[in-house]
């Protein structure tokens, strides 16, 4: 049995038929080839699979693709402005891609992670960044405790939490400076 779904992923309309049991994270990674969204625990604990669904951070390993039908999804590939070249290629990726530095335009949270050494291996990073984007949309100037609370559903096994907090603070400052 398959079900018809229609959604927007990183601004690009997508439609197709999927099995009702297909998880959103598998749809993004295996059907659309957007492997920037990672699978860590598959039990909603680690947050590596976090994406934005209509602007809100969700764990894509706990949603079915059919539940995202009609929604707008943003993955790490689509976060930076002008990032359309990573909007999904409909196929899996081979080896050797992804060594470029992108187009030079990063989202303020991405910039913060780079500036403040908010990552080591980078596996938790896409989820951390998207959870932080959700927070900064709701709270322009979060206190440290509020950042820790907002990221409590995202685990980093490199234990780089302190620098992640600093990265989010950097982004908050940068975003409020831009709006002035």
């Amino acid at each position, binding site marked *: 049995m398959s079900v018809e779904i229609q959604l927007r992923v990183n601004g690009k309309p997508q439609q197709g038929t999927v099995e009702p049991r297909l998880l959103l994270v598998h749809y993004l*990674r295996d059907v659309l080839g*957007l*492997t*920037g*969204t*990672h*699978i860590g625990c598959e039990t909603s604990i680690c947050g590596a699979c976090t994406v934005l669904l209509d602007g809100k951070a969700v764990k894509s390993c706990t949603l079915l693709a059919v539940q995202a039908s009609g929604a707008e999804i943003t*993955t*790490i*590939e689509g*976060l*930076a402005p002008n*990032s359309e070249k*990573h909007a999904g290629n409909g*196929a*899996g*990726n*081979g*080896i050797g*891609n*992804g*060594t*470029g*530095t*992108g187009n030079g335009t*990063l989202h303020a949270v*991405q910039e913060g*992670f*780079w*500036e403040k*050494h908010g*990552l080591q291996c*980078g*596996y938790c*990073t*896409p989820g951390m*960044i998207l959870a932080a984007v959700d927070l900064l949309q709701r709270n322009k100037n979060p206190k440290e405790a509020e950042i820790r609370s907002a990221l409590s559903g995202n685990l980093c096994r490199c234990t780089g939490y302190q620098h992640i907090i600093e990265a989010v603070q950097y982004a908050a400052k940068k975003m409020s400076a831009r709006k002035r």
Partner: protein
Amino acid sequence: MTTRFIGKPLKRKEDPRLIQGISHYVDDLQLAGMHYGRVPAHSLCACEDPLR
């Protein structure tokens, strides 16, 4: 003596791809005829289809 790299923070060269989701981990690899499965001790095994 050059001190270009000493005493100051350096931005990591691998970060741009990691923060944009365009990096690749083993789980992202797709090779022709690849099968995968778990074997004991938390390993991920990727190999050619032995039946082909």
